[in-house]
């Protein structure tokens, strides 16, 4: 996903000289081509995320569209107040990019697990929060964020994420993409959980369960209409995210459902517990927290059983 991002950013930087990339001394093997081709649009701020974010805001206030770039929690939590006061308060054109959202750097330990970032970013005023589900979404999100004025958070996976889409995708900020249709259960996935969620839907189909899969790549502003349609058109909703179950996609969807009168759809959040996650590969960790194809299938079956018994 990070390669798709940089590829897309290089095209954009060529087209639009306002586009700049500011890294916090990370992106080995990824950012060098950008730096070589666009030296006047590139800055390595060093291992100094607060300053990285502040200078990005200063550049944006002089007319630039600035992407800050680092991994895990470094471009978000480390410099949260700069994001809030310098970027969001000034509605500055700063797009914060984190590579390794979730458990991509699982073996590196909890310091490198970005598991509360969506919750924290989503709480800030003015900001747009996007977690693309595959390299194609990542590429389109990058372009869409350049076109959209104001601060944004772009949460990426790392590398080697499988493609979910084969053809054209109608990607719009704030609009969920319906990948499969069904009226039994809606699986709402964001970011790196999208691929496993689509696979789970395929397995559920074999069991005779029709799952609607929504790619909720934009967590803020949330596609409220898509949530309402899911509540009306299917018997249960499950949110799937590589993030704490507190404050992320699941919470955002729950907020919408809880405040809508007469909405009795079954609902479950799949995500990480509010705990420091263990050490291991992404595959190992996601599986141990049931964020796997099997885990999603099992949750869907359970929720639907509950839904049936209640009816």
């Amino acid at each position, binding site marked *: 996903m990070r390669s798709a991002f940089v590829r897309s950013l290089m095209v954009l930087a060529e087209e639009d000289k306002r586009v700049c990339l500011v890294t916090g001394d990370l992106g080995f093997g990824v950012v060098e081509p950008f730096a070589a081709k666009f030296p*006047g649009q590139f*800055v390595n*701020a*060093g291992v*100094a995320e*607060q*300053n990285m*974010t*502040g*200078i*990005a*805001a*200063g*550049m*944006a*206030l*002089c*007319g*630039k569209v*600035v992407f800050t770039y680092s991994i895990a929690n470094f471009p978000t939590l480390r410099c949260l*107040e*700069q994001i809030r*006061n*310098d970027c969001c*308060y*000034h509605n500055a054109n700063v797009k914060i990019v984190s590579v390794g959202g979730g458990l991509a750097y699982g073996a590196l330990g909890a310091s490198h697990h970005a598991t509360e970032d969506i919750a924290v970013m989503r709480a800030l005023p003015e900001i747009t929060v996007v977690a693309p589900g595959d390299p194609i979404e990542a590429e389109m999100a990058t372009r869409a964020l350049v076109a959209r004025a104001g601060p944004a958070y772009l949460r990426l996976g790392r590398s080697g994420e499988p493609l979910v889409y084969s053809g054209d995708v109608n990607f719009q900020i704030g609009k969920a993409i319906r990948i499969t249709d069904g009226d039994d259960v809606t699986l709402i996935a964001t970011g790196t959980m999208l691929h496993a969620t689509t696979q789970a839907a395929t397995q559920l189909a074999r069991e005779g369960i029709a799952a609607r899969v929504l790619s909720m790549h934009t967590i803020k502003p949330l596609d409220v209409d898509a949530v309402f349609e899911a509540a009306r058109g299917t018997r249960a909703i499950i949110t799937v995210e590589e993030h704490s179950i507190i404050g992320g996609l699941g919470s955002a969807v729950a907020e919408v459902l809880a405040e809508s009168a007469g909405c009795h759809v079954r609902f479950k959040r799949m995500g990480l517990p509010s705990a420091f996650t263990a050490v291991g590969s992404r595959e190992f960790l996601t599986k141990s927290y049931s964020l796997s194809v099997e885990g999603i299938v099992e949750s869907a079956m359970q929720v639907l059983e509950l839904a049936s018994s209640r009816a």
Partner: protein
Amino acid sequence: MQSSKHLLTAARAPETISGDRDLAGFARTIRIATARMIHRAKSSHIGSCFSTVDLLAVLYGGILRFDPLRPTWPERDRFILSKGHACAALYAVLAEQGFFPKSWLDTFYQDGSALGGHAMHSVPGVEVSTGSLGHGLSLGCGMALTGKREARPFHVFTLLSDGECDEGSVWEAVLFAGHHQLENLVAIVDYNKIQSLGGVDDVLDLHPFAEKWSACRWAVREIDGHNLQEIECALRQVPFERNRPSCIIARTVKGKGVSFMENELLWHYRSPNDEEFKASIAELSSAS
């Protein structure tokens, strides 16, 4: 730009200073307006405002290029009040220069006012919002870098407090500006030697202060931050060296201008009561 009668041109021009311009009178006007605002508002930071006033008077009295009728004129010099808690003085300056009506000053700190207790970019002439310390110099670096890369004529001036230099982010920005040779960037430190809970030397000693900036490749000058000629002389000479950002360490007095406030920690917080206010105005009005 020449059409604007308000435009103060010839920034950093070689002509001599002060002369026929009454910078002392300007500074006195700002101090009196600031005292009125803070007294009316029953707010804090009068000492922190007074230590900055002479610096602000020189900056806005002939150094900065700006146009009150077009606060966002792209080639304006950027002034960042990184010590955003001294905004009452800045608001008084901006009102005096015609960025907004002076009547606004009476609403400072009040419910629903345009003028809050820390610098807000929604106020005409205020470049950026500040209030949390340690943000301004990074913002200034981003602006200066852009200006340098595009060969734009503006300078970026950032006014920091000494206590603010406890913040690690300040030193991230100091390193960055030196490394990137941002000679269009000026940091002015209001070195009044008193921070929130005590003397700067006692809380977290900054010594050797000038050397820290020099070591990070800044050209540093130490001045008396209340001597208008010295201030203007320094500001007209930036950049002090080619390819280096300029740091002006301005030795100041917290509460400067009102004898019972000077060098007193209390006046970081205390708001003058009616009697103290009267005494302040009397002393400020009689100042030469």
